[in-house]
């Protein structure tokens, strides 16, 4: 049963995503696994972090004991100050997002469809949800990467053929990194790019809702 196979932990997902951030790019990290990504970007690869709270070039999360109440991200978490930092109005923060100045955003998701539709703001069973800045980022960022667990708490696939949860954006996701695989939504469907160590493409398909397009060679998850 592939559902019982060992999966990668959240830090490994974050490490894999960090490899996708080009040096010198401007990056906005969402809440959850995406926030962890900043811990794994190596010092050589200078990345500029952007936050909707009105901060650019902020550092990764602050260590305990050095928190500054005036330096927070969109989730209210404390950030480290770094040289070259800038503060601005939230109006400007979203001008940067919609205006195409943010290169990459990394977001969590409830569901992603085969063609890259994103649903990450509302669980239908709850009837309501928080959208935050996710819809702006889905519409405005040059590249949307989703970092998430492959299946939800009940084992349901989060990579699906069509989303049935309310959408955040259509066709906006360009890469999905999970604890099982790396996948690329395309107009033709979901392409499996990498599988976690010990997983065959067929086993990945077994825990995935979307029909996977499996190329001749599927690389091992690269960390």
């Amino acid at each position, binding site marked *: 049963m592939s559902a019982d196979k060992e999966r990668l932990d959240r830090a490994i997902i974050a490490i894999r995503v960090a490899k996708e951030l080009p040096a010198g790019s401007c990056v906005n990290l969402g809440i959850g696994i995406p926030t962890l990504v900043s811990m794994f970007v190596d010092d050589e690869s200078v990345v500029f972090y952007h936050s909707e709270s009105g901060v650019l070039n902020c550092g990764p999360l602050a260590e305990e004991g050095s928190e500054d109440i*005036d330096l927070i991200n969109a989730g*209210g978490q404390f950030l480290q100050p770094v040289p070259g930092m800038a*503060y601005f109005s939230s*109006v400007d923060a*979203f001008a940067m997002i*919609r205006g195409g100045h943010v290169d990459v955003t990394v977001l969590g998701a409830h569901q992603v469809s085969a063609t890259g539709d994103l649903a990450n703001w509302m669980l239908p069973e709850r009837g*309501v949800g928080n959208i935050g800045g996710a*819809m702006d980022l889905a519409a405005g960022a040059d590249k949307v990467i989703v970092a998430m667990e492959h299946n939800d708490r009940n084992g349901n696939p989060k990579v699906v053929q069509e989303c049935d949860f*309310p959408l955040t954006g259509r066709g906006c996701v360009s890469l999905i990194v999970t604890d099982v695989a790396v996948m690329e939504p395309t107009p033709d469907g979901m392409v499996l790019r990498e599988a976690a160590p010990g997983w065959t493409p067929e086993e990945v398909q077994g825990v995935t809702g979307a029909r996977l397009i499996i190329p001749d060679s599927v690389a091992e998850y690269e960390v």
Partner: protein
Amino acid sequence: MAFSKLYDSAAAAVADIPNGATVLLGGVSGANAPTALVSALADRNVRDLTCVCDSTYYGAEALHRLVAAGCVSRIISPAPFGSGKDDMVHELWRSGDLTVEVVPWGTLAERMRSAGAGIGGVFLPVGIGTRFAEGKEIRVVNGVECMFEPPLRGDFALIRAARADGVGNLVYVGAQRGWNSAVVSAARVAVAEVDQVVEPGSIDPELVITPGIFVNRIVRANSAPIG
């Protein structure tokens, strides 16, 4: 200078906010919210307020204080709900005692900017193809589908800043600037709660962040915890 926008107390600065007013609240988390002004407003037992805010989710004690006091009938926010099962906003929404309108964060910012700048709304590409676009006017601009978003004006804005002079010029510290400076221009009356009040001339004009024309009243922050 005899002229000053400084009020003696938070209570005096919010004394004329009537029932049914639309109040724009600054602050992204409880940390940089106008807590003294909000406390003073909750103490007045006003009713039927529409509160426009960033979130109630991330430690926004200020808004929770108003909601708990029964002052609020409507919230417009990108992130109004808490995560726990016992979230007060969620409970009140479910029982029908609170109307909640969820709006993408940047769209909310732009709607208020429009109001403050006298613009008749904006066309935004955010939310196309989602339920947020339902019932809205859609127009294709330079090949991109956009939806119309009207201006959102407040009767009052309550914000937090670090420093003010008597004519209302403001300086913020850190991320305090983000949401506070975004809402300040969109209300008929803007009230700023600040840590420090200085003489006009003490703030370098080159470094003023919010010009005093947008600010009607100033009060000194009350550092006492909200309760």
